[in-house]
């Protein structure tokens, strides 16, 4: 018959530390994910990904310049 080993205070403290760090890191990852979702859906990514012409950009694409008018034909005498 095996006797259960008495749990030492050190092991309890170590477990609480590991559990705390684990939960903190999980919450951090969840927070970064949520923040990313909010930033992407709100289009709040600053200017880095907001260049004219980029997919999802809020910047208008500069309209093309109108073609230059054809030169007037030389007047023949």
């Amino acid at each position, binding site marked *: 018959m095996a006797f259960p080993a008495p749990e*030492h*205070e050190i092991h309890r*403290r170590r477990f609480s*530390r590991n559990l705390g760090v684990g939960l903190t890191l999980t919450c951090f990852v969840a*927070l970064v994910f*949520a*923040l990313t979702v*909010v930033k992407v859906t709100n289009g709040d990514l600053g200017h880095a990904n907001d260049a004219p012409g980029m997919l999802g950009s809020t910047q208008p694409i500069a309209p093309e310049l109108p073609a230059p008018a054809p030169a007037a034909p030389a007047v023949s005498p």
Partner: protein
Amino acid sequence: MTDIRSFEAPKEAGFGDFVQLLKPRVMSLVVFTAFVGLLVAPVHLHPVVSFTAILFIALGAGASGALNMWWDADIDAIMRRTKGRPVPAGLVQPGEALAIGLALSGISVVMLALATNILAGALLAFTIFFYAVVYSMWLKRSTPQNIVIGGAAGAFPPMIGWVAATGSISVEAGLMFMLIFMWTPPHFWALALFMNEDYSKAGVPMLTVTHGKKVTRNHVLVYTLALIPFALGLGFTSIGGPVYLAVSVLLNAEFLRGAYRIWKRDEVMAEADSYKVEKAVFRFSLLYLFLHFTALLVEAVLHSSGMGGW
């Protein structure tokens, strides 16, 4: 037969000891004032962004608390009020406190800047630097004006909250800063009057130690008088209003009455009733700050429902 379990176990920190390193009571004040600063701002952030901003402002404050505990471990071990802290108690090694303080400082500043804006992140970095280096390492042990200048570190959070929302500093943010900045000296000196022995033993040059209690009593009254214009002035800005102003007038009248009572007393009277007035003023000073920021919050709610404000 010797029971092996009767030997004293080597000290090992639990998760809660690392949380204590971040000074959770100070963090709760930081969370509240930063929350108000962020909420009363004219620009409204997404709730997730607001939550992230407040969390990392609080974490930055906690990081500076850990750095303070690393640096001040020697005097913390002497003072009755602080000798149970994790580093002097031997639960957390000084090197661990330093590593946690530095790591959390970096994480909080970068995350706040990414979540909101660079200026808010820079202000948080400056606040951590101010508390850990300017206050803890330099002023605290060298001048009796330590808490006057060091009080700036505790005054930044509502300004950072405001800047996180708006991206700029304004009169309102400046006055919220000044409210806490000017409140800190009478608050701490009221405490120092009845905790003088602690500071004296540790060799911290608090005003009570270097200039005596009579001078400290004078200072409490003068700084309370200097605080009043900033507290009332905030009521006339865009975030103030009649509710804030009414609350502020009452709180300032009571705080001034308390400071006057401290000024009128001498050591014989104080020792006779175990510093009853000083302890009462110290407790009231906490309520004073809490209710000022609560009144700002009420004004913001009234404002959003079409009432409040001027």
